[in-house]
């Protein structure tokens, strides 16, 4: 890679060992990517509080811990301050209600250690998979370095900013140095559409956008789908969150276009950069039905856990779910977990949503991911969810079977203890 003066200085250790180690990793990373140079960024979404195999995480000295797990070295490197503005992706537990999750005291202690580290080094403890819902809204064209596969397409496709899916190690090194390899979706030509998807159906609610995204991810994998909607609609943030999460689960859709909606696709020509689509696919009733079947892995209608808010629920979804739960009681055999960001819970608290959920017997949880390894309630075998992302991952992560449906069906299930959802 061709380095600028300041990059060379960091690599040579002139700005301290932490930046040097970060640059070493970034040069290796950039070379693996085939990148020729770096570009500056001041917007990083970090993954620093999440350890899916806590049994592997022994050190309790935070500098040693972060050196080992994020700077990938046994050397103890002390970080002064991270350079870039940043937010943080989910942590390992709800930082306040970890006992509801039956998380261990030692995992909680680990989180406290990392919290102190973050405060010292200038890392924002935002703890959400939806940074764009809590104040990190990049500008079109802004070079970012975001973790979280469902947030990345929001950054790229919805806002027109630019990021690859960064991982824990790359994001931390980028935040330390303010440098990201110029590759992938930072480059104009890689952002152009590759596959045209003719959407024959009316996609007018969150479930429909989940199904469309899950279909597209499966058929497009790492490509850039272009959605042509037969029935024009401008999806809102809740719907786009669904599309993004689904496409990044069945596939790795990190960039897409919706003709007439997303900022780089005023027309079909613009979306494809004047080129022809590599493939033209149709999304109709058969594809929709098959996608729904793919997402539903359960057969037993008695549900143990209803898990909602994956990715973290929006303000609108919090309002809607609270309305559905008003004056209702969750069935005694069912746990109801609803997830959002700590910051959005602050609104839910004021608006009485948190009280309504608690009164009904559910839990409003924050900071971590409902897909967190080994943190389902003990004995959970059947899960119901309104998230295609959750339905995709939960079987592999928790060894459970999953029902997927609408928010209304999930709340009905939470109340009755039985799954009665169906594709309408």
């Amino acid at each position: 890679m061709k380095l600028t003066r300041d990059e060379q200085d960091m690599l040579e250790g002139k700005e301290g060992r932490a930046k040097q180690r970060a640059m070493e990793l970034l040069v290796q990373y950039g070379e693996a990517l085939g990148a020729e140079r770096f570009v500056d960024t001041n917007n990083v979404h970090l993954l620093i509080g999440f350890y899916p195999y806590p049994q592997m995480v022994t050190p309790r000295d935070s500098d040693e811990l972060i050196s080992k797990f994020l700077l990938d070295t046994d050397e103890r490197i002390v970080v002064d301050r991270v350079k870039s503005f940043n937010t943080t992706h989910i942590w390992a537990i709800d930082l306040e209600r970890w006992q509801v999750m039956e998380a261990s005291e030692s995992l909680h202690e680990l989180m406290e250690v990392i919290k102190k580290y973050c405060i010292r080094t200038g890392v924002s403890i935002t703890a959400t998979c939806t940074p764009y819902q809590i104040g990190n809204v990049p500008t079109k064209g802004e070079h970012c370095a975001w973790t979280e596969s469902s947030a990345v397409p929001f950054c790229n496709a919805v806002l027109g900013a630019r990021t690859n899916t960064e991982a824990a190690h790359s994001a931390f090194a980028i935040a330390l140095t303010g440098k990201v390899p110029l590759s992938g979706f930072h480059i104009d030509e890689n952002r152009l559409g590759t596959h045209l998807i003719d959407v024959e159906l009316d996609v007018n609610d969150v479930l429909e956008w989940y199904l469309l995204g899950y279909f597209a991810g499966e058929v497009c994998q790492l490509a850039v789908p272009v959605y042509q909607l037969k029935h024009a609609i401008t999806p809102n943030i809740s719907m786009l969150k669904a599309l993004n999460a689904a496409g990044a689960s069945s596939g790795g859709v990190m960039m897409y276009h919706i003709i007439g909606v997303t900022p780089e696709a005023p027309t079909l020509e613009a979306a494809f950069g004047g080129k022809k689509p590599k493939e033209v696919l149709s999304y109709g009733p058969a594809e929709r039905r098959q996608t729904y079947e793919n997402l539903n892995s359960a057969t037993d209608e008695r549900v143990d856990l209803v898990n909602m808010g994956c990715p973290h629920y929006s303000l609108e979804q919090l309002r809607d779910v609270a309305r559905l739960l008003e004056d209702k009681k969750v069935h005694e055999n069912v746990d109801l977990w609803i997830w959002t960001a700590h910051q959005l819970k602050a609104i839910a608290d004021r608006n009485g949503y948190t009280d309504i959920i608690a009164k009904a017997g559910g839990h409003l949880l924050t900071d971590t991911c409902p897909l967190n390894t080994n943190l389902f309630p003990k004995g959970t075998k059947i899960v119901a969810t309104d998230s295609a992302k959750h339905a995709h991952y939960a079987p592999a992560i928790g060894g459970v079977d999953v029902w997927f449906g609408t928010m209304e069906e999930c709340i009905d299930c939470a109340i009755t203890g039985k799954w009665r959802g169906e594709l309408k």
Partner: protein
Amino acid sequence: MSQIVLKGRKAVGGTAEGEALVTKQTISTWGGVDAVKGIITERRHELRGQSFAGRVLVFPSAKGSSGWSTVAQVIRLAGNAPKAMIIGEINSLTAIGAVVMQVPTVTDLDQNPTEVIATGDWVKVDADKGIVEVTKKG
């Protein structure tokens, strides 16, 4: 025993050889792999239940979660790393994942590795030179 030579470029340097484990499907390590057991766990994945530890993993690329390198590192720490990786089209997740897995990795090959190589083939990877030698099984 027929031999095939593929040419690509180094992603992560080093040399290694071993038996190939090949999939035409993308892999998500987080939520699709048990790092401590070293096996693929994704529900509808064609390699579900299979172990990549000590083999040469041949796959098109990463999909899914940004937890890729987090899990890749645990795979290494748990002693379950593959001997080498051959990646059809490297992306951000597989690139930093290969760096922290610390195994020889090649990409951008002149033939599609997931078509040319089959599970059970013996594969020699010289990542520094970007060369992959495949000895077909049987």
